[in-house]
């Protein structure tokens, strides 16, 4: 069964046609990477998967998106967003909350835990998974805004993990991270795919090659090519994919 299927998906911002008739399947328990030049529609596509797009008044969607076989448009958006977590391109921790509460608020609101003890454990687990625990364990009550950009990004990853979503959408999660934290996040993604499905937008081609089981290439809102990552990077079928990944683009 596929975690996500898009069927003739189109997205418009007002008159602007941004996602063009994309039909694709994202199998479950994989890391599925999406690459493409800036402005091609990657973030828009991710935001359609958890219906965040609807918060934008000019956005219009046609076609269908299925989560484990069921149309997401038949679901309650808040239920959907519990099942499909997201980490944004810009780190966006809740500024008025502490480090601890940033992670704890999701499970609390969604009643995922029954005791303070259980919550503590979950927060620690999520922060460890996001490779942040050692840096914050002695200052959990500091405001999240006291963290560096890269630490804030890892905090957002921890926050997303704490809800234990089925699908995790990540938009350029490591663009602000150093190689060590990046490597930790990449290991995390590979571990997480055992129980979750990961959709990763990345500009870092090597990252797509390292962690992606499947890779999709999008150009100007169109799905140009999708396939197993090794095939895409060894022997892409479309000339435009080849030009993009070998740096001959444009």
């Amino acid at each position, binding site marked *: 069964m596929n975690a996500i299927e898009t069927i003739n998906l189109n997205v418009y911002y007002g008159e602007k046609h941004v996602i063009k008739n994309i039909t694709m399947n994202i199998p479950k328990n994989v890391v599925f990477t999406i690459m493409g030049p800036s402005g091609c529609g990657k973030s828009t596509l991710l935001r359609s998967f958890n219906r965040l797009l609807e918060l934008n008044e000019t956005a219009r969607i046609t076609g269908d998106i299925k989560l484990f076989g069921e149309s997401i448009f038949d679901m309650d958006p808040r239920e959907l967003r519990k099942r499909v977590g997201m980490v944004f391109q810009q780190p966006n921790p809740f500024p008025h909350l502490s480090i601890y509460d940033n992670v704890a608020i999701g499970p609390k609101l969604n009643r995922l835990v029954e005791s303070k003890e259980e919550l503590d454990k979950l927060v620690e687990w999520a922060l460890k998974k996001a490779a942040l625990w050692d840096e914050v364990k002695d200052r959990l009550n500091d405001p999240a805004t006291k963290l560096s950009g890269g630490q804030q990004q890892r905090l957002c990853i921890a926050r997303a993990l704490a809800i234990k979503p089925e699908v995790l959408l990540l938009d350029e999660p490591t663009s602000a991270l150093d190689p060590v934290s990046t490597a930790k996040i990449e290991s995390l993604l590979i571990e997480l795919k055992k129980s979750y499905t990961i959709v990763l937008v990345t500009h870092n*081609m*090597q990252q797509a090659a390292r962690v992606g089981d499947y890779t999709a290439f999008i150009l100007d809102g169109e799905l140009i090519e999708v396939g197993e990552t090794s095939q895409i*990077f*060894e*022997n*892409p079928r479309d000339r435009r*994919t080849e030009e993009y990944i*070998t*740096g001959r683009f444009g």
Partner: protein
Amino acid sequence: MPREVLDRIIEDIRNDVLKLSDVTKKAVYFSIEALKEKNVEKADMVYRLEEESDLLNLDIENKILSAAARYHPVAGDLRFFHAMMKVSSNYERICDLAQKIAEFVKKSAEKPLIKPLIDIPKMRDIIIEMIEQNEYAIKNHTTEPTNSLQNMDDKIDMLYEQIFNELVGIMVKDPKTVPDAIDLLFVARYLERIGDIVAKSGARIVYMIEGRRVWIK
């Protein structure tokens, strides 16, 4: 990735492989010339060509490793590096085999051949034509000339069988010819191996250019 830099490296490696290809052709050519004439100078020349092929192969390997480390080639670039690495080490091995042929010449320079060579030079000429087809494909990025590689390799195999049978006949008739006939059998066997290696190199070049796997038996 600085595309121009990688393009320059690719051109450089391509030229090195073409140079190695030329050395390989000469080594194969002169090994059989040396044998035909029992000419020690020509055999020595094959030794020098073999050394040159070692150095070129090492050089190509180093350039490819360093480019892979720095530029993480993918797609057509990746297939190029992979194919050139293979072709380069294949051609270096061909030069080794040519040197073995030259070794027979040096060992028995004083003795006349037990028979005039006819089919062995024919095998050699087909091999050289195959190497030239590979060269053309590498230089012009087209697979068309490599289409006949399997065919030519089959011809080499047929010639090998023919030589084998002929030499066995000679040995049966006159056992005194056995040591020399065995040398010639080895030569034919080496040429058959070389034909194989050139054909397989051609298959790598097709994959590099088209991303299509072809199998040469």
